[in-house]
């Protein structure tokens, strides 16, 4: 920022007035420091005109924190976090189950058995590493590619699949939202919604609520996940701003996987990623190798500690690569070469990296790996078969939960209207007749 060293005479008077805080009786005097500060900053005054374009020295980018390399070996100077065998194995098992669940559900969508799905291929370490670093009752506000957090907290494959099928056992949404829009109050996982980044300022509010709650203050933080694309929304700006200005223990975890649907991150921002913005908000920030589960775990653990201790926002940017398509409605080979994706999978696979690390310590073996995968596959198959046999929730659920308390007259009237139409046509109009059979009770509550 450029400012003249010497105030022109016309401005001098103004400066004096500010330092004297408008008290008329104080004799005006020149500022104590020859250059003085500006009222809205503590910025030192310089006579050198110097533009800058990064929080780092010119030409350098914010470094990426890494612990283990592609062969599972600690890199030079890296400090491996203290982990016991069971904890490390549990992390791996959680990571390993994600692509298996994704494979099955992705294929179920391709077969038209569920309407939509989003995989987390390539981001297993970013999701599970961070989940492992959180307390089980930290409040999580996710985007949609973080089902791993729920699974890590013990949600269970069946609950996941019930939501995707919208069955009568869907405890997340009662069949009201698209697949992968999970929620669980017991597991402190707030409802996922499709509008991007809306959860980010909400997380600041959740963080503030935690700070105001004597039973959770200093114990918990709010955690919000979002992609690099979502960080372009105004809500990202608002959320960072709020959690830093109104100090709230809120942990911001950006999954920078290089793409927002077809838009590469080069078309998403011109600066040094998401991490470079953290400093602008006065927020402690770190960039971490999102394919290195140990680095993610360590960074998020420390980030969480600072977040709670200082009661302020902290930002973690995990650098990953979206190996899968954006969703089942997307063919990513329309905008990126298949070869690039295959190479990524081969060269920098978060699962392989961590498995090699475990094997080097004698904590994991090929046999165990095969057994784990077979078990998870069997679990997923059993779960989806079960879900397929389940009916949807009762049809009358369609009108519930719009309002709390008494149902307003317009909804009552509309429910009655549809009920009348279903009675009239539900047994003869084919599209309804076929559909009604899928609901619990087959809509009988409306026929009686």
């Amino acid at each position, binding site marked *: 920022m450029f400012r003249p060293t010497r105030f022109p005479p016309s401005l001098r008077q103004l400066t004096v007035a500010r330092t004297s805080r408008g008290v008329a009786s104080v004799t005006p005097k020149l500022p104590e420091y020859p250059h003085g500060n500006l009222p809205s900053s503590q910025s030192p005054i310089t006579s050198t005109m110097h533009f800058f374009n990064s929080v780092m020295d010119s030409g350098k980018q914010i470094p990426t924190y890494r612990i283990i390399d592609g062969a599972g070996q600690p890199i030079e100077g890296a400090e491996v976090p203290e982990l016991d065998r069971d904890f490390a194995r549990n992390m791996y098992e959680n990571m390993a189950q994600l692509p298996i669940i994704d494979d099955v559900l992705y294929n179920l969508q391709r077969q038209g058995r569920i309407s939509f799905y989003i995989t987390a291929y390539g981001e297993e370490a970013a999701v599970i590493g961070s989940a492992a670093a959180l307390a089980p009752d930290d*409040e999580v*506000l996710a985007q949609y590619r973080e089902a791993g957090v729920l699974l890590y907290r013990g949600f269970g494959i069946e609950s996941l699949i019930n939501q995707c099928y919208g069955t009568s056992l869907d405890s*997340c949404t009662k069949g*009201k*939202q698209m697949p992968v829009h999970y*929620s669980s109050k017991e597991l402190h996982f707030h409802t996922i919604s499709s509008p991007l980044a809306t959860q980010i*300022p909400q997380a600041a509010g959740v963080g503030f*609520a935690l700070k105001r709650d004597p039973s959770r203050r200093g114990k918990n933080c709010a955690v919000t996940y979002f992609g690099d694309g979502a960080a372009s929304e105004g809500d990202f700006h608002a959320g960072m701003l709020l959690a830093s200005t109104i100090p709230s223990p809120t942990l911001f975890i950006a999954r920078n996987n290089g793409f927002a649907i077809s838009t590469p991150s080069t078309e998403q921002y011109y600066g040094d990623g998401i991490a470079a913005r953290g400093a602008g908000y006065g927020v402690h920030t770190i960039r971490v190798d999102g394919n290195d589960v140990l680095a993610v775990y360590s960074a998020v653990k420390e980030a969480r500690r600072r977040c709670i201790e200082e009661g302020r926002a902290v930002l973690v940017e995990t650098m990953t690569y979206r190996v899968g398509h954006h969703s089942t409605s997307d063919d990513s080979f329309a905008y990126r070469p298949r070869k690039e994706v295959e190479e990524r999978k081969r060269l920098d696979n978060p699962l392989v990296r961590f498995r090699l690390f475990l094997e080097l310590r004698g904590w994991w073996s090929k046999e165990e790996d095969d057994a784990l995968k077979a078990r998870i596959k069997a679990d997923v198959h059993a779960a989806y078969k079960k879900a397929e046999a389940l009916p949807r929730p009762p049809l009358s659920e369609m009108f519930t*939960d719009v309002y709390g308390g008494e149902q307003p007259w317009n909804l009552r009237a509309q429910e009655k209207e549809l009920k009348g139409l279903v009675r009239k046509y539900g047994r003869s109009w084919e599209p309804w007749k076929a559909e009604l059979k899928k609901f619990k009770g087959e809509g009988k509550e409306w026929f009686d």
Partner: protein
Amino acid sequence: MYRSLRALSRTSRISRRWSSTQANPPPAGGHLPSIATSAFLKPTRDVSLRTPGLRWVDPVDTDPAHDMVGRETRKMNMYQAVRDALSIALSKDDTAVVFGEDVAFGGVFRCTMGLAEEFGRERIFNTPLTEQGIAGFGIGLASMGHTAIAEIQFADYIFPAFDQIVNEAAKFRFRSGGNYNAGKLTIRCPSMAVGHGALYHSQSPEGFFMGAAGVKIVIPRSPIQAKGLLLSAIRDPNPVIFMEPKILYRSSVEQVPIDDYELPLGKAEVLTRGNDLTLVSWGTPVYHCETALKMLSHPPQSIAEHVPASLRSAKVELIDLRTVLPWDVDTVIESVKRTGRLVVVHEASRTGGVGAEIGAEIQKQCFLKLNAPVKLVTGWDTPVPMVYEKFYVPDAIRILDAMMETMTY
């Protein structure tokens, strides 16, 4: 948002001069009511305590007739009543917080005066200047079961928060199968014309939220109403947008009960009884309606020739809707079935406005009883213009003309 316009709070007192309710010279039949002299404002303790629908939150006697004993009132204008409601909500609910742009020093309309001193800066605090952030932050608090009372400085600036309100707050409960809700969120915002607010300090955006199933929209007309309805809004299990007609902040003054009381949401109030025409409005135009009714029965000399003698004894039923979403269909239907005629008055522009919704529903439910088309008296389909405001707002003369046209149809 535009801080230079903070001055509005100070000038709104002056703007009363420009209010249409005082536009005409005193006629032979006596002075026309202005906001300050409105018969709908309760000048004494006894009248105030008998406010219809008033429900004490801390009853001292099970018999409502005796429950008035010992209750006190104090003369307040609307911003003081809002402040009083906030103070009660804060003192009874430790989770309640008040936040928004410039609320800590008392707010640009003084609705939060002294609250920061009374309850501390942890509970009354400024936010950065971001409406989407304010709404999102409030939703986050509410989803944790905390009472979030957010302020948007002008209703005109609620649109950056539209996504958070419509896609998030309104759908929070439904989409999570009841797991989570944003019911403890209340968003207060000054709305409606103020005499000189032009495009961005005059809007009445209630109609934009009509399709946002899951939120409620409440608009009070007076200090007693503001306090009782705001306390209900804060405690309602749904997110509520509470729009305070800013011209009434200082101009409407009445005796307000000092205790904790509520007025029901979703319930209209019948202000005058009649069998010849139903007049429905909310917020500021309620007073224009009052003036128009007086002009109908006692037309000022200057316009007397336009008011047929046969209409001067007409009995008009004036209804203050108070809650716009969900609106009180039963009260309006019952009235229109008796009167056979309906005029709806609102400041927002016509197309896509709340009046269209009411007109359609009444046409559907009262078709055989209607003796004239439902008439809407609204702002025109233009932005609210600066120097033309007097010709934009649905003032008394336009309401009078609409009533006469409907009654002579």
